[in-house]
């Protein structure tokens, strides 16, 4: 399962990395949008300043048509010479103003004044036309015009704000007054001045006019623009430079950013200005990347690569899962099922499995041992032989014999554990071996009884399949005179087995140089002790036989 786990770790890391990137990307996108909006707003502010400047220039230029009108010049000249003639010239002057104003077409004034040399309004068109006599000499633009300047300005008159242009009126070689052109700040003017970005004009905390901005974009309402006006008056940059830093405007409809600037002119000193507002969409969660993407964005994705990557990740996951999960389990299942056909006393060969599957196999073996023991201990079974209890093959002596391989001369001692093999669909169990014994008893309690010629077949240090139920050699036929442990005849019995084993090895052409009786006897005793401990038998019978062309020994517990 190592690769599967490593793969899972890789996928988890990749997922975590992707999530981190997406979350970081959200913040980066929001920051980039803010920076971009800030730059756009400052650029638009410069453009608006330029547009207002050009608009002022245009108004000053078109006003020449009014200032040079002969009737206007004549009327103002008369009044400048004799102020008491103001009433007599007013109607004609007003008619001239109306006519000339109409000719200005797109730049027609909302309010057009004719002022005499004292700065007194003699006639005005557009607003309150019957009114006259107001003294506007103190207005800097009018005062400058009466001295010969062309000058623009902004005036705040009550709640309205006007863009102003003033020109001198010259008659002969002298200034006889001025004409003053006023354009009221309106939504239309705001839209004309700034068609790309929403432009608003404000006065104090009121919005005077608001442009429509670009179609199909989020629009700010007047209340939105006015929302931060209280901050504007305190803004350090506004007080120092005449325009604010870019201010965020949070609304129910969305997020905007705005920059506020004083208008040039007298009204600017009364906190009249313009604001440029831009919607700045902010990503609040990562899913908005998908929600706000267009079909074109989705189509532009490298779908083939994405799908291949997903399929590859999935396929690799399945492969690792099969190799490390399903296949070992299937093998275990097959081996377990094969047990049905095997000798009842056979167990699973745990060495054929790894890690957890090996543990499962060991657990199965333990359970099997436990069940067998339980059956042996049951009252109605106690009288039966072990072959009768464990299976139907009691007559087959081969199945009741434990076989083990003696260590070859110079061979390392076997690993701790005892492998059991079964002929045919071989299985083995590896009960914990009590060191240093080569043969270890299983952890389960030993069965109470075992008859001669019965018991699990055991192989010590076997590598490779055991020849299925190898038929014992004639010299290895079981004998009935198996001595009891520690009896006098035991040494002779071991000598007899040794001789048979020695002879068979020679016969098979194996080396017998290192095969001494002492070592052989030690091995026999160890295996005898292990089997006695496991099966609670009184003696162990050894048989010599040939297996795979080599001499081998088979041990059989003898109960009585």
């Amino acid at each position, binding site marked *: 399962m190592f690769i599967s786990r490593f793969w899972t770790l890789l996928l988890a890391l990749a997922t975590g990395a992707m999530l981190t990137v997406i979350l970081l990307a959200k913040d980066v996108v929001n920051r980039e949008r803010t920076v971009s909006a800030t730059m756009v707003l400052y650029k638009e502010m410069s453009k608006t300043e330029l547009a207002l400047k050009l608009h*002022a220039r245009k108004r000053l230029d078109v006003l020449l048509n009014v200032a040079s009108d002969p009737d206007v010049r004549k009327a103002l000249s008369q009044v400048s010479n004799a102020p008491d003639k103001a009433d007599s010239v007013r109607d004609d002057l007003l008619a001239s103003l109306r006519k000339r104003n109409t000719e200005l077409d797109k730049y027609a004034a909302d309010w057009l004044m004719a002022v005499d040399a004292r700065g007194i309004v003699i006639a005005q068109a557009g607003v309150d036309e019957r009114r006259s006599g107001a*003294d506007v000499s*103190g207005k800097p633009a009018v005062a400058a015009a009466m*001295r010969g300047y*062309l000058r623009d300005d902004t005036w705040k008159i009550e709640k309205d704000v006007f863009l102003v242009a003033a020109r001198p009126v010259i008659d002969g070689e002298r200034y006889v007054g001025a004409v003053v052109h006023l354009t009221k700040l309106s939504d239309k003017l705001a839209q004309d001045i700034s068609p790309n970005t929403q432009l608003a004009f404000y006065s104090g905390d009121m919005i005077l006019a608001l442009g429509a901005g670009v179609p199909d974009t989020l629009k700010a309402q007047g209340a939105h623009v006015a929302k931060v006006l209280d901050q504007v008056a305190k803004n350090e940059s506004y007080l120092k430079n005449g325009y604010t830093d870019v201010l965020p405007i949070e609304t129910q409809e969305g997020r905007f950013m705005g920059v506020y600037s004083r208008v*040039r*002119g007298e009204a600017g000193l009364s906190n009249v200005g313009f604001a440029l507002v831009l919607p700045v969409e902010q990503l609040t969660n990562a899913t908005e990347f998908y929600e706000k993407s267009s079909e074109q964005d989705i189509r532009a994705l490298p779908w083939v690569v994405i799908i291949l990557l997903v399929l590859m990740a999935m396929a690799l996951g399945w492969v690792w899962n099969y190799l490390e999960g399903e296949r070992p389990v299937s093998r275990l299942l097959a081996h377990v099922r094969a047990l049905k056909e095997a000798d009842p006393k056979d167990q699973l060969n745990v060495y054929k499995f790894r890690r957890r599957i090996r543990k499962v196999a060991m657990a199965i073996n333990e359970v099997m041992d436990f069940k067998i023991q339980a059956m042996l201990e049951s009252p109605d079974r106690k009288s039966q032989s072990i072959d009768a209890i464990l299976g139907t093959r009691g007559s087959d002596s081969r199945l009741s014999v434990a076989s083990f391989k003696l260590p070859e001369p110079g061979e390392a001692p076997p690993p701790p554990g005892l492998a059991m093999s079964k002929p045919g669909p071989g299985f083995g169990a590896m009960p914990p071996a009590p060191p240093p014994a080569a043969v270890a008893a299983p952890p389960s309690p030993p069965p109470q009884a075992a008859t001669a010629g019965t018991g699990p077949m055991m192989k010590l240090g076997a590598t490779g399949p055991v020849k299925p139920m190898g038929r014992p050699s004639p010299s290895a036929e079981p004998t009935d005179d198996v001595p009891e442990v520690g009896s006098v005849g035991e040494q002779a019995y071991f000598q007899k087995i040794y001789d048979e084993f020695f002879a068979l090895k020679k016969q098979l052409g194996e080396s017998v140089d290192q095969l001494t009786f002492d070592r052989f006897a030690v091995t026999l005793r160890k295996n005898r002790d292990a089997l006695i401990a496991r099966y609670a038998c009184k003696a162990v019978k050894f048989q010599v036989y040939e297996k795979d062309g080599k001499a081998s020994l088979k041990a059989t517990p003898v109960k009585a």
Partner: protein
Amino acid sequence: MRTSVLGVFLLVALGANDARAANLSGKVTVTPAFREALAAQEKKVGETERLYYWQEPNSALPVVPPAVSPTKDLAIIIRLDGAPDPGPDELQTVDVRAGSLAKNLVVTRPGSTVRFKSVDVFEHELYSPNLPSFTPERQSSGAFRPIEFPSEGLFEVRCKLMPHFVGYVLVTKATHVASLAADGAFTLDKAEPGKYTVQVAFRGVVMASESVVIEEGGRKDATVALKLEKLVVAESKPANKTETPKK
């Protein structure tokens, strides 16, 4: 004998009357350089305060420098050495017109009250940035607004509704304040003997000053000539501080 004594008294009395009858007069001349300096200063203010996009001369006639009206823009302050503190002035009224006070420079003494009367069709909200008691207050046409100036100093008078509006009140312990005629002439009748300092102020700042002595018993009028040549820009000072012109 009685006739002789009476004659001496009459002569002394007449002589005394003749001495008091000496007049202090003079004339203020505004030089072209002063008006040019004024035009330059106005242009500088217009640009720094972003008052316009365009201010350019017309192509037909030369531009006229800004006018300085002696009656409206100038004031003569006369100080007599050793003269006692004259105390507050009587209540004086100043009209408020479009864009400025009818008299742009009002000179008064500490503790005096000046009454501002609006004669403009537009509303005003007059205030002084350096007199805390002179706060903005809506004033309709025809309405009065009395303001006390308790201590010496130069006080700007501004209007919240008309940012270009500016007037000046100079509060000083002058012995006399003379009005100017349209041609810049002024006269102080029956000036007492002593050393006089005659100053002409524009926008609350003394632009020129002359000293003259009227002798005890002298009969000849004293005359001074004051020229406005160099523009000195006023710096608003808070109340209780004397003015310090900045060149």
